[in-house]
């Protein structure tokens, strides 16, 4: 009994530790080990292939193309950071139109991503309402197949995702803005500061860590959070125009039935996100320390 009393803490934590080992640690290790095998010769028959899957990755045109698509997506991250920031500022400072945004901004984020995807496949479809409106106002040339053209499809998906995610960004920024002392704004207004200056000189410097946090969240989500939208909107097409690494993992695992190769892609994806997130977090931390 004395032993049990001494180790009471460990015993109480044991169920949680067991669950984490079974459902987190074991699958992770298993995934890494699986990436050194090939099962394409028959389901369930795993053959050790060493680094072959990793070597194959870097000559796999579909995978390389999916990385290129990530790079294209990363280019629009500033929009994902700025749009919710502006909406949050409008609501926080009760600028013109704030009540409209307050009532609606979080609604898109509450919709399940697959539903958002299917909804926009109709809204932005070739015969959908957006194109109908464009045609009715004489802008036929703009009434294009938004998800059916190689050079546009990826950005159409990103626009849908922006619509879906900006509510979360807005509420994140709003929470941070609520911690800024009102006196700062009041004295700035007394000194004649305009809204633009309040945003640029007071709000943004005060919430830099939150902006950093949101940027990390968006960046990592571009690697591992786009699946439901791609699944519902384009399935990686036309061709490979909207293929992302995570969707490719799904294809290789469930359609090509090569769990080993899919695991290798997953491991590389994990390393990419890990390194990127660490860099961004380190930068954020340094930034906030400087502020202090």
């Amino acid at each position, binding site marked *: 009994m004395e032993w049990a009393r001494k180790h009471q803490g460990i*015993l109480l934590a044991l169920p949680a530790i067991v669950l984490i080992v079974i459902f987190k640690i074991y699958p992770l290790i298993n995934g890494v080990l699986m990436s050194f095998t090939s099962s394409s010769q028959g389901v369930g*028959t795993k053959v050790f292939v060493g680094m072959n899957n990793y070597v194959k990755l870097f000559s796999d045109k579909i995978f390389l193309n999916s990385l290129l698509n990530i790079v294209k997506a990363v280019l629009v991250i500033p929009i994902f950071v700025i749009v919710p920031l502006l909406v949050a500022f409008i609501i926080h400072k009760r600028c013109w139109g704030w009540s409209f945004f307050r009532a609606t901004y979080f609604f898109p984020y509450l919709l399940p991503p697959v539903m958002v995807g299917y909804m926009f496949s109709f809204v932005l479809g070739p015969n959908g309402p957006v194109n109908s409106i464009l045609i009715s106002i004489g802008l036929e040339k703009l009434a294009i*197949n938004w998800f059916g053209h190689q050079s546009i499809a990826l950005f159409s998906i990103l626009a849908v995702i922006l619509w879906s995610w900006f509510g979360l960004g807005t509420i994140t920024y709003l929470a941070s803005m609520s911690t800024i002392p009102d006196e700062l704004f009041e004295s700035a207004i007394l000194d004649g500061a305009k809204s633009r200056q309040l945003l640029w000189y007071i709000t943004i410097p005060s919430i830099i860590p939150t902006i950093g946090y949101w940027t990390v969240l968006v960046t990592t989500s571009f690697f591992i959070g786009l699946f439901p939208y791609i699944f519902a909107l384009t399935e990686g097409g036309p061709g490979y125009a909207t293929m992302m690494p995570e969707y490719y993992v799904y294809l290789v695992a469930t*359609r090509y039935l090569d769990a080993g190769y899919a695991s290798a892609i997953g491991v590389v994806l994990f390393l990419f996100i890990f390194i990127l997130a660490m860099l961004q977090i380190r930068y954020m931390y340094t930034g906030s320390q400087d502020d202090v």
Partner: protein
Amino acid sequence: MMRKTMVSLLIVLVLMISMVSVFAAGQVEGAEGKTTIRVIQYAGGGTEFWKAIDKSFMEEYPNIVVEQEIVQPGQYHQKLGGYVTTGKGPDIALMEAGTSTFMYRNVLTDLKGKFDDILPNITGLGIYYDDFDPAKPLLAIPTATNGHMVYYNKQVFKEAGLNPEKPPKTWAEMDAAVKAIRAIGKEPIALGGREYGVYWLVSAITHQVMSAREQADMFNKTQKWTQGKNLNVIKAMNEIYKRGWICDDAASMTVTPAAQDMFVNGDAGFFVSLIGDAFNWKVWGDSMGYENVGAMLFPELRAGDIPGVQPSPLADTLPLWGSYAFGIMKWSNNVDAAVTYMKYLLRPDVQKRFVLEGGFFPNNVNELDPSFVSQPVFATLFEWVKDSEAIPGIFYWQAPEWDAFVRNTQLLYSDMTTVNDFAADMQRIREGK
């Protein structure tokens, strides 16, 4: 303090027991004195259909209990693959046709000799012999039939001034029908080009340009995509697009709801799909009225229709295969009961229920009279099945080639690739690059 420790230990114990109970769930033994066979499948025809079939079976064979494990199609192979890895699991597993079945060859029982009494009546068995070779093990037994053909909307035909009782039979006649349908502002073939709609189309197309032997060569990989008959498949895909047979925006269109709605609502004249399973005669008949549904074989390619492409001897036949097949796993200790169950599924009276309750097309056509279904479209399909024994070449393809073909078709049907680039990409995928 002691009391606190006791309480803590009790909580830990309860939690551990709960977890063990959760993991132990599902390991329940079947009823005593009875043989329990477990079946894994994705319930084509619906869960209720299989419940009704199993109920009848168990009434007739009271010593056999059937347990179904229904899995979503998208997760089926992971689930079955998990059983294969552990070497134990269900007795019977649904097998998709061709190369998909071969993946499980090491864990499937050779069914040769076990179905000899009914084997002559089974349709479309060829794709279930290992490597498509009847000298090798028979890996699964189909319980339904399927094939790729074209449904047409008779109402659209009437509006376009076409005779709804005389669908186009040749490419020249199809050209004329397409022209008439486009003239009234409607689309010809409603194609879900974003996904599996392409599979059905290319199966019909392959039949137009390749003999059975040539289709087998696709599997054997003796023919490159960049030359010969393989290249002709892509040329034919391109030709029907250039001739205007394919609806606009097919490249980004889903099979359902987009293409399906287009056909059902009378905005398109044709839909290439299946005689059984999903998108079959019954689905169309129920949704748009049987009087409006017509069935036709894919128009027959003739010499000169595509420059430099010779038609196949199969061009006027139905690409046919036995579908919804079941295999018996090697680890099963209940092979006899499993065989009894599978033979039951192929009995003529049960096969009728496959049609009437499950929406399948029957496999056992030699022992059935089509008159049990009153719709003329069913009788038409029935005759085609009786007359055909042609294996569609698509089952020779591996999954990455499938995927690449669909994606390149999207590009082809959006003027974003050429026939030669399409072929080169297919060859690259075939070589695993």
